[in-house]
């Protein structure tokens, strides 16, 4: 059965599926393979992609952070309020990032010190951060951010010589960093250990609490950074920016084959999951498929993504039993 599963790993399968969808899209849909469309499609996933990176590490360690979209909104609202108050944009960014880290630390502190389940904690902070966002900015919308930064986040400005917009280029770099951390360092192995068997990891000398705290802080940091990208990309800071995005991020990560129970998953799979949802949505939009159907496709994909490995495993077991029987 092991051999069976090894060759049919979900994340590699997903990568193949992504390439297939890309090729099929290029062949069947006019305008899909054009660089402007690809830039736009990629850039549309920017915030989800950026948050998906730390979320993958967190889910591998058996935790979850539902407050990311609220933190995105808080960071956006804060950026808007400070810009409104006449702050320099260069000063606003570090302040927002600091708030993100603090928010992440609060999550981590409640999980590690008070000993609460992360799902419960982050449902609480989801409400709290979104509430703070509306305290900071009310229902105003702040626009008119400096052009240089707005350009940086727009899909029309790309890394010279490629069709990759800057937020996605940054995402690519961070993805490599995250992949190295997760798969090539002791720190990464510790995350898998915590996700698989927290107590055993602790007995083996893994500093469980500290690692969890760091992960939550990094997730908060990335969520607040995604808030700045969101604000610049849409040119509007609002308290309700990114409402409901947390479920999309988690859906992408889980689609990538990361086990929600922790201990299993690859960063490549998660990235493939993010890109697949982005590319599919773009393809469906180009083909005039309504937004509603796109939502259904996302949901169905998610269900299929957890069912398929299960079906493969059951089939493998059955085959093994048949060969073992005589």
């Amino acid at each position: 059965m092991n051999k069976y599963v090894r060759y049919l790993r979900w994340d590699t399968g997903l990568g193949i599926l992504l390439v297939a969808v890309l090729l099929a899209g290029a062949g069947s849909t006019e305008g899909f393979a054009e660089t402007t469309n690809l830039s736009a499609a990629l850039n549309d996933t920017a915030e989800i992609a950026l948050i998906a990176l730390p979320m993958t590490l967190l889910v591998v360690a058996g935790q979850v952070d539902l407050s990311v979209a609220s933190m995105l909104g808080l960071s956006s609202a804060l950026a808007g309020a400070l810009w409104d108050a006449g702050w320099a944009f260069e000063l606003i960014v570090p302040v927002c990032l600091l708030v993100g880290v603090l928010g992440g630390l609060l999550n981590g502190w409640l999980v590690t010190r008070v000993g609460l389940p992360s799902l419960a904690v982050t449902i609480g902070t989801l409400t709290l951060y979104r509430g703070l966002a509306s305290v900071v900015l009310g229902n105003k919308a702040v626009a008119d951010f400096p052009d240089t930064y707005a350009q940086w986040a727009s899909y029309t400005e790309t890394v010279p010589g490629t069709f990759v917009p800057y937020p996605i280029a940054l995402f690519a770099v961070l993805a490599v960093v995250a992949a190295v951390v997760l798969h090539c360092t002791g720190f990464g192995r510790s995350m898998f250990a915590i996700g698989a068997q927290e107590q055993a990891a602790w007995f083996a000398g893994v500093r469980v609490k500290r690692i969890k705290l760091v992960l939550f802080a990094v997730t908060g940091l990335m969520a607040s950074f995604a808030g700045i990208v969101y604000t610049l990309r849409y040119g509007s800071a609002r308290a309700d920016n990114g409402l409901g995005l947390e479920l999309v991020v988690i859906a992408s990560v889980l689609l990538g084959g990361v086990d929600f129970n922790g201990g299993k998953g690859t960063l490549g799979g998660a990235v493939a999951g993010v890109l697949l949802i982005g590319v599919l949505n773009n393809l469906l939009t180009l083909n005039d498929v309504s937004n509603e159907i796109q939502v259904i496709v996302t949901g169905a994909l998610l269900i299929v993504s957890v069912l398929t490995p299960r079906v493969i495993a059951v089939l493998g077991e059955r085959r093994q039993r048949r060969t073992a029987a005589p």
Partner: protein
Amino acid sequence: MSTSTLKPPPAPQAPAERPRRSLAETVFRVRELSIGGALVLLILGTWLANPSFLDSQGVKDLLLNSAILVLLATGQSVVVLTRNIDLSVGSVVGLSAFACGSFVSGSDHSAVTVLLLGTGLGVLCGLVSGALVSFGRVPALVVTLGMLYVIQGIGHAWAHGDQINAADVPQGVLDLGSGSVLGVPYLPLISAVVLTGTAYYLRTYRGGRELYAIGSSPEAARLAGIPIRRRVLAAYAFSGAVAGFAGALWLARFGTVVADAANGWELTVVSAVVVGGLAITGGVGTVWGAALGALLLTTIGSALVVLKVNPFWEQAITGVLLLAAICADRVVRHRTTEALRKRRRP
């Protein structure tokens, strides 16, 4: 403790053990008591600050506002008890409300038909989620998140931006949402009946106790021969049924509905359940707690309005109270465990 281990316990001391045990048991029960106490304090405080909070209209509003959330929290608790979760409830409510609305629009169907239709639709959705979770043996969070999108998408595709107008909904259905018996509106009465029935079943019937067993230790439950798959499937069907039923009530209450009526409610419902003292890891808590949690969340919202708190602060305060409730519950549980451990020590 050390002195008692040195000398053998004399016989007269044995009865003295009794009150200590009952104390620990009281602490156990305090979990619901503490939420109830917080609720009473909140209501009293708000009432002192603004007496109109508890006039007959105020109480009626409070009951009406919380009725649907209490109902949904009841359904969700049954699933959470089995160490699963149902994130699709919000979308089921929306779909059911819209389906019922388009079914009765411009006709004279009775309220009972509408409720049956909504419940049936909910059961269907619940059975799909339940079958995927119990027979697919896959993480509930992923499956119900997927179902959330699928059902939401179906609702949107069907509604296509349309909405049901109160003017088209037959009066008989609207009466269900606004009518009352002896001054008590129907909606909270219905919620109370469903809540009591569920609580009784969970407490008394074998099936209910088995749900607790499954949540506490799936492996032990399996070894004890409990039909886990069937029970989990039933729990999801129940949660779906309640959500669909709530959708029909939603239509009766508001008249005007869109397909994403209860969008985002899944997390509110889970919040209510968690605040109510049900462990997200299953096997612990009661539906009474969940209902109190739902009541508390609704009351916080209403109280902040009555106290004329800046509406921008409302959600932040709710968040802080939510966290405080979760932390308090944790502390109580920790104390209880300590008390029980001390008692067990010779």
